[in-house]
């Protein structure tokens, strides 16, 4: 087992043990969403990082699951503990239905097509207010089994566990034959087919894994906020956040989305408390630009290569020497 993964598991265990200690509530609250997003980003990365299919529409599955859980609770009183896993399954089905036609599209067009998904889902939600409560959103989404006073600690634990599961899944995928196949698809899908890879089968499998984990995240998220609306569930944020985190942290490894996720979410929280609302978007935009241009390998790549200045220099020199026709 890779050293850093062992280290990660130990840290996770320690973090889990903190719940017994009388740490301030703010500690649990701050880290809870950070863990959730880290895990969500990790699950995105299976499709977007390893397979190279940059999905800009994962928020559609996230929000779908959130709404599924919320509406079943609202209309029928079904406990989220039952419906959250079902939400995950629902997302698998939707991911396959949407995946089959769209995975034929080249990377760039795939991104465009997936970008439109949250918009479509949001539009559908708004158009049928009797079923979905439309623009007002759904409130009072609670997991009643969780005692109110313990909510911060329990959600902290749930999301910590979720993050650990997602990271472990990504870690195992990365090392497996399956993961190797995904990377081959990312590098050159035609050549991958020529090596015997059933690209359709592998891609569907990736969609399934990613879809399920995303659905779980979305389902829990709704109960955590206790309120969802079309704009929070299907806005641009749930779709762009996992992408941003993976790019920040590094799309090639399991560690990237974890680092990117925790750092970015803590940053986001800090900004929300200190500055007016829209500054978030500005900073996200800036990070996206900087990291896409200067650090495409993400933070993990930076650490591996060791030297910030070295990277900048290395990229500059390519301009003079390259022989490939562009």
């Amino acid at each position, binding site marked *: 087992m890779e050293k850093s993964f062992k280290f990660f598991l130990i840290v996770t265990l320690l973090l889990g043990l903190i719940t017994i200690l009388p740490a301030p509530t703010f500690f649990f609250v701050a880290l809870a969403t950070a863990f959730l997003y880290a895990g969500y980003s990790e699950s995105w990365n299976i499709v977007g990082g390893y397979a190279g299919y940059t999905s800009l529409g994962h928020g559609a599955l996230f929000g779908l699951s959130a709404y599924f859980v919320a509406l079943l609770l609202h209309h029928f009183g079904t406990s989220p503990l039952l419906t959250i896993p079902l939400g995950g399954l629902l997302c698998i089905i939707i991911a396959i239905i949407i995946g089959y036609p769209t995975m034929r599209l080249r990377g760039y067009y795939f991104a465009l097509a997936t970008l439109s998904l949250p918009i479509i889902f949001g539009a559908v939600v708004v158009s049928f207010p009797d079923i979905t409560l439309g623009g007002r959103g759904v409130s009072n989404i609670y997991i009643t089994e969780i005692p109110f006073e313990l909510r911060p600690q329990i959600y902290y634990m749930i999301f910590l566990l979720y993050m650990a599961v997602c990271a472990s899944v990504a870690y195992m995928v990365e*090392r*497996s*034959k399956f993961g*190797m*196949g995904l*990377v*081959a698809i*990312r*590098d*050159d899908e*035609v*050549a*991958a*087919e*020529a*090596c*015997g*890879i*059933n*690209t359709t089968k592998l891609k569907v499998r990736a969609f399934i894994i990613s879809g399920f984990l995303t659905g779980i995240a979305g389902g829990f998220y709704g109960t955590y906020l206790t309120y969802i609306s079309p704009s929070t569930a299907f806005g641009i944020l749930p779709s762009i956040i996992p992408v941003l985190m993976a790019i920040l942290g590094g799309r*090639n490894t399991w560690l990237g989305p974890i680092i990117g996720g925790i750092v970015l979410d803590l940053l986001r929280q800090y900004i929300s408390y200190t500055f007016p609302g829209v500054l978030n978007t500005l900073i996200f935009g800036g990070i996206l630009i900087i990291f896409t241009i200067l650090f495409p390998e993400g933070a993990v790549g930076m650490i591996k290569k060791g030297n910030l200045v070295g990277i900048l220099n290395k990229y500059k020199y390519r301009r003079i020497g390259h022989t490939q026709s562009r």
Partner: protein
Amino acid sequence: MLEGKNLVKRFGGLTAIDNLDFYIDEGKITGLIGPNGSGKTTLFNLITGYYKPDQGIIKFKGRPITGKKPHQILKMGIVRTFQIVRPFLSMTVAENVAVAALYGRANLNSMKEAIQYSKKWIEFCGLESKTNTPARELTLVELKKLEIARALATEPEVMLIDEAFAGLNPSEVDQAIETIKRIRSELGITIFIVEHVMRAVMNLCDHVIVLHNGKKIAEGTPVQVATSPPVIETYLGKRY
């Protein structure tokens, strides 16, 4: 062993393959030559499942393979290399070959086994010194060797080589000829090769098929084909 009958492939108004029959003997090295645009790579694409023929059938060892997908055809024993090399750039040489070992007919399941297994083919192609080098740092010749090593790691019975000699200097051409001869003699793989470099064709092939405008215009041993009037006319014009 590998045969096609009445093959037709059209792209819009252009007929790339026009009622073509071909037959590849087991254990032989067969060459496919012809002017640019005569349909050579299209034929490879048809055989390996990247295109579906509009008409006609292709059979491998008696079983029809028309319309199957590339990875299925690979699993049946036919592998192809690409005219413009297609390495997996983010991987090392070993990892590149390992992918083929995992998903080809060797059908290995663990990464460790696959990397171990791939060393054999890396050596065969003379790339040992670059085993752990990322593919994006290789020279063109090394990339071509990688392409071959990767194809071999799928444990094929038939290998379709698409213009492997383009861009090689004379000594590299000789080396490549040797390697291909070894593939046939040591590994017993049937080879079907598209080529422009005549020295390679004359040297390697037992049998040559000449294509022009999607039709077969000549067939035979290299010498027969080189001296046949339709071929000379195609390459050099009527006066010769």
